[in-house]
């Protein structure tokens, strides 16, 4: 038995959408980072679904890159969050708005 491609895409889109909503709305930087991971995974699911549907390895290759990138990103992102927390004693993303024009 096989899962229809449309279901896979719908799952990817849903994951991305939840991630985006969380990224924009959450007030805690750690959760914002988590939401970012969720968006990554939405994209990853979509890529893998496409590879399966078209019987083509190429999207999977991109998927691998996404995994690597997510790992790298999360390490850098977490380091930044920790540094920011040390500076501000808060995890509110709006607290770091020095670049306001």
């Amino acid at each position, binding site marked *: 038995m096989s899962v229809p491609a449309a279901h896979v895409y719908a799952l990817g889109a849903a994951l991305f959408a939840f991630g*985006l909503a969380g990224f924009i709305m959450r007030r805690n930087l750690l959760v*914002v980072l988590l939401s970012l991971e969720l968006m990554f995974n939405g994209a990853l699911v979509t890529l893998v679904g496409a590879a399966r549907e078209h019987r083509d390895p190429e999207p999977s290759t991109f998927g691998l890159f996404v995994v690597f990138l997510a790992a790298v990103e999360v390490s850098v992102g977490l380091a930044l969050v920790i540094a920011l927390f040390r500076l501000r004693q808060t995890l509110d*993303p709006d607290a770091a708005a020095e670049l306001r*024009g």
Partner: protein
Amino acid sequence: MSALLPLLVGLPLAGALACGILHARVLVRRHRDPEAAANEALVGGIATGSVAVAFFVAVLLTIRLLSLPPEHRRFEADLGTWIDAGRLKVPARLLLDPLSALMTLVVSGVGALIHLYSIGYMRRDPGFARYFAYLNLFVAAMLLLVLGANLPLTFVGWEGVGLCSYLLIGFWYEKGGPADAGLKAFVVNRIGDAGFLLGIFLLHRELGALDYASVNEAARSGLLPANAATGAALLLFCGAVGKSAQIPLQVWLPDAMAGPTPVSALIHAATMVTAGVYLVGRLHVLFLAAPAVLLVVGLVGGGTALLAGFGALAQRDLKKALAYSTISQLGLMFLGEGAGAFDAGIAHLVTHAFFKALLFLAAGSVIHALGGEQDLARMGGLARRLPATFLCFLAGAWALSGLPPFAGFFSKDEILGGALHGAGAPVLGALGFAASFLTALYSYRLVYLVFSGRENFEGRPHESPALLLHPMRALAALSFVGGALAWIPIWNRRPIAEFLAPVFGGNEAGGGAEHVLVAVLSLAVAFVGFLLARRLWMDRGLAGERALARLPLWRVAAAGGVLDAFYRGTVVRAARVLAIACGVFDLFVVDGAVNGIGRAASAAGETLRLLQNGKVQAYAIGVAAAAGALLLAAFLLGGTR
């Protein structure tokens, strides 16, 4: 021999440079010592010497010229190519033929005398060296104008003398008035010069050659189409009208008297203003090929002679009266040329250079003695105080009035004789005789107002020093014998006309009994003018013209004609309105555009700045919204694929 030719222009030019450098040194020294002045003996010596040497070179060349057979009397000096651009080829070539030789002699000879006079006149002026630099530059430019073998080279000299005229009219620029007068002279001359340039362009388009020999030859042989000849002659005459202060461009010359008096003598009486007369003579074949234009030349000259004669009569300023007289005499020269008597016009140019320079120098001596007074109402009775100046002025006025044995009679006679023979004879002749009558009238009016009657001045005027008197005496002698250059009645010879015959061809303007008739008539007219002047003004001062001064015509003439007011009301006002309009356009449209762009950029920045709120999640909304919008657009526009 022709190797000496460039010296004629080069010597005064070198003198101008030397004087300019000496003036620069004075300016540098003046930083330490405000009273620093030029070494007047050195500057005056260099300036006068350079012109005097140029005069002797000119004499030498003229003697050599006379030793050649008449048809070969021309020296040319090629100084290489000046312009070589496609079809336009202009060699830097100087030409000395009888006409330019005569002009060169007058310019350098009278010029040298006036330089000498200026040393005394400009003594202790802080701009002494500057004055002589300008004056030498003027002589150089004038000689280039005269000696240039083609129209563009003459044009360079033409503009050069215009520049020097501007600089010297405004020599005392600190006073304001002279600076304005200089500007007026320059601007009015530009109008004429534009015509001159267009004439050159037209000739170049039609002929491709611009040297006088080719232009005259083309006009003679009919190579130049008749309407092109008419157009070119008319345009070139525009230049002559501007430079020689003929109606309707005569308005600048009376104002030009704001300059130092020797400048008025040299530039605005003897030489520069005669450039137009010279140009018409130089291109006489072209003008003969355009009879209509020649008639215009005669009529403009005659009309100017008459109207400026009235103007001269009504002036209360000594120098302005002489200026109007100059305009009137220039008109007479054009009248002669317009009638085809080119040699007569040139002959009058020569004698006029003598006696009008003399009159201005004598007037300068009077003004000098009275401490700068120029108002005729504040003179009178000066014959006893300034006997030498009086005799010189009398010689000049006598010559100007056209009474024998002085020069004016003979040369004016030539013109009147020519006018009665040429085209438009009755009109031109009548204008000539009327102008002659006025000339005698205003000449003796000046003599009587300045030198006879009650003394209306203050102080005790003293005779001018020898340095001023000697050049005046030399010019007085020339005014006396100069008539012999134009016509020697006993032998019925005309030295100038014979000398110029290789240029103008031997056009015989009357002779014998007929000529004697003209002479008697002009003598009678001048004598009546003299008697009338004697009756009106002798020993009576300005009271003599009280009845005349009430006439509206007199008041118009005194105001310098209506043209000045007309120009002020039309051209000057239009220019001013245009200037204001341009100013408004610049202020609001050009500046508005420039400032507006700046202000718009800054306002856009102010507004867009608000988007940059530093909050990461707000940016993310923007990115997401944009991505969503792009997706939507791709979905809607791209259709299904």
